[in-house]
């Protein structure tokens, strides 16, 4: 009798170790299976007049806003489109799956730091093949989309980071938005009261934490090629000071940027480092009065250098020359002046053609600080290319070590570099 229980559970459970232990491979298996069944899928993906498109704008309002731009371009180029959207975190896995099954879409959207990695696989075709004009675009975004001297994609708009502040809380203390690190520390300390912290930022142990650290690091003259310089350590010291003095929560090491925004909107942070993609959410709360400025610099006179965010549209190698040419035209269209302004205005992002900046700020004054920030912004992969993920891992590891008191900022970067 006793054995019945155990015998019943055995067949189901004993296989679990294999299943879950080989997690990585299970995720790949379906890819391999599709590879067998779907060979030559690219050609079968529709008639010659239809372009397939893959992007990660799967949430409203972005889904519709980008969809409108895509529809305009479909009319322009004279093609039909078949669009697929996937969640942001699934995009690369989807692209890898499609690469191995040769079913890449005709037009592919990629987050800009991923472009070089995918271009390096040979999966993308350079835009010069189709005579696409890439002049007039901000250097930062072209750097991100370039691999071995060739431009592989264009971004209609980009974003970056800035300092948001709660106007009511600052006004109550008579504080003006800080422009230097010292002012930032003083302001954050003064604004910390009760449940409210002076400043919120994301120092999470993912690339997101590294991205939030970059404005401080780059502005201070730090460089990802050598993370053991004093300039980099100083930037980390600023975060350590803010957390240790209690002006920022110790929880910053677990906060994503969405968490940071939640804290700010709940009135639990008087200021935050975040990007303009939060503006729709912030504006939806009519009780919240907020403003934004550029990220403070270490010493007055330094130029704030923030990282460039945003998505790039590329032309994957599908083997169908005719369609690839049409796809290139399509990519060119998405980044046309008209589309840049429309998308920038609707999505609170910044046009990538520098000539459009003035016209844009006149239309959307609240984006002034971010537009200025973008002009000097750097791309994450511009210098290190495919090596960037390793540097980014070292950065967030060091941040975590320093903010948890495991090491001083200098030591933290040395330890992180040791892997």
């Amino acid at each position, binding site marked *: 009798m006793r054995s019945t229980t155990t015998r019943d559970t055995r067949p189901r459970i004993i296989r679990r170790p294999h299943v879950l232990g080989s997690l990585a491979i299970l995720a790949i298996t379906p890819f391999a299976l599709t590879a067998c069944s779907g060979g030559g899928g690219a050609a079968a993906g529709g008639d010659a007049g239809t372009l397939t498109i893959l992007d990660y704008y799967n949430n409203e309002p972005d889904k519709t806003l980008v969809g409108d731009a895509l529809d305009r371009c479909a009319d322009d180029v004279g093609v039909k489109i078949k669009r697929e959207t996937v969640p942001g975190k699934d995009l690369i896995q989807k692209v*890898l799956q499609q690469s191995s099954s040769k079913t890449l879409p005709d037009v592919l959207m990629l987050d800009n730091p991923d472009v070089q990695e995918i271009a390096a696989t040979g999966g993308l075709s350079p835009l010069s093949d189709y005579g696409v004009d890439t002049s007039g675009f901000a250097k930062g975004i072209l750097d991100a989309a370039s691999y071995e001297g060739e431009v592989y994609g264009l971004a209609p708009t980009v974003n970056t980071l800035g300092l948001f502040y709660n106007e009511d809380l600052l006004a109550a203390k008579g504080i003006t938005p800080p422009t230097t690190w010292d002012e930032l520390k003083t302001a954050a300390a003064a604004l910390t009261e009760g449940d409210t912290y002076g400043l919120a930022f994301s120092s999470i142990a993912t690339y997101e934490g590294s991205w939030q650290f970059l404005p401080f690091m780059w502005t201070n003259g730090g460089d990802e090629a050598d993370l053991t310089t004093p300039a980099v350590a100083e930037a980390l010291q600023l975060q350590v000071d803010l957390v240790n003095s209690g002006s920022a929560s110790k929880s910053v090491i677990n906060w994503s940027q969405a968490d940071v925004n939640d804290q700010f909107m709940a009135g639990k942070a008087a200021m935050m480092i975040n990007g303009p993609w939060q503006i729709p959410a912030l504006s939806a709360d009519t009780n919240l009065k907020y403003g934004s400025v550029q990220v403070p610099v270490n010493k007055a006179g330094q130029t704030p250098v923030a990282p460039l965010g945003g998505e790039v549209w590329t032309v994957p190698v599908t083997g169908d020359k005719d369609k690839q040419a049409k796809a290139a035209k399509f990519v060119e269209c998405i980044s046309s002046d008209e589309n840049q302004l429309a998308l920038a205005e609707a999505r609170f992002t910044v046009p990538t053609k520098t000539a459009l900046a003035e016209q844009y700020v006149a239309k959307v004054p609240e984006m002034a600080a971010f537009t200025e920030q973008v002009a000097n912004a750097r791309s994450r992969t511009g210098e290190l290319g495919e090596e960037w993920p390793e540097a980014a891992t070292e950065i967030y590891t060091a941040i975590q070590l320093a903010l948890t008191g*495991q090491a001083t900022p200098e030591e933290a970067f040395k330890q992180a570099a040791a892997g």
Partner: protein
Amino acid sequence: MSSGIAGASLQDRKTDQRSSGTDGGAPTKRTPAGAGRRSRRFRREDLIKLGFVLPAALYIVLFFGYPVVKNVTMSFQEYTTKTFFTGEAPWVGFANYVTVFSSQLFTPALLNTALFTAGSIAGQFVIGLALAVFFKRRFPLSSFLRAMLLLPWLLPLIVSSATWRSILDQDSGVLNAALGSIGLSGVPWLTSPSVALFAVVLVNIWIGIPFNVTILYGGLQDIPDELYEAGALDGATGWKAFRHITWPNLRPVVSVVLVLGVVYTIKVLDIILGLTNGGPANATQTLAVRSYQESFVNFEFGVGAAFSNILIVISLLFAIVYLRVNRRAVDE
């Protein structure tokens, strides 16, 4: 000592001997029979038998054999994003394993895996057993409460971990607020490297309790009441009854629960990703988390496969223990 108790433990000892005897004898008996059947020509009956075996065999080869073999070969290859497009995965021998073993995170991850597994199992089992014994008695609402105990099992893990993350939040979490109201200072549950692993273990214990209660409760139901009656007559009640009747009779079930618990716990990924993502400062890195991050964050599938192979080998050891323990239980 009472006859009932002596009888129970005697029965146990006999079982041990008997089972070890069967172990040795079985193969020698089976082999000649199999050889004889093979020498005969195929009959309709054999084909039908084959028809029953084939789907299961195919399933196992396709969904267990292939992934495991592929995972092993992958761990000897430089398998990166490029591989997906070009199909080329250069053979690199043991390079991925060298990367794994020389990584600064390997030893901490291995240690954390051990601590996480041991801590979780100990907590789950002790609390689970206590609850199972408690619910053996009938009292008003007992079956309702027992059903409610399964709740953690019913929640998607991603929901549990998100909820616990907010409960354990240092500034605005419910737990620290409760501690504060009784005059204790808040604990940096998920923000201090020295506490985070403990916090993650706590959450995993909460998740694992239903499994332990369910299996152990089932085991308790199978212990005949006569043993307790006989024991009570001889003065064995309460703790003595547990020590001399419940525990010896429950032992086969206990070993199964523990071994399955290890195999379940050692590969836990979602809870850790949801709570800390391996942080703060790598304090909650385990082999499973390393495997996931190497494969799906760094896209170093070869290194990720090497990590998961190490995990598979460890799980396999426990699976073998489980099989031996289980065979004994079945023989009984």
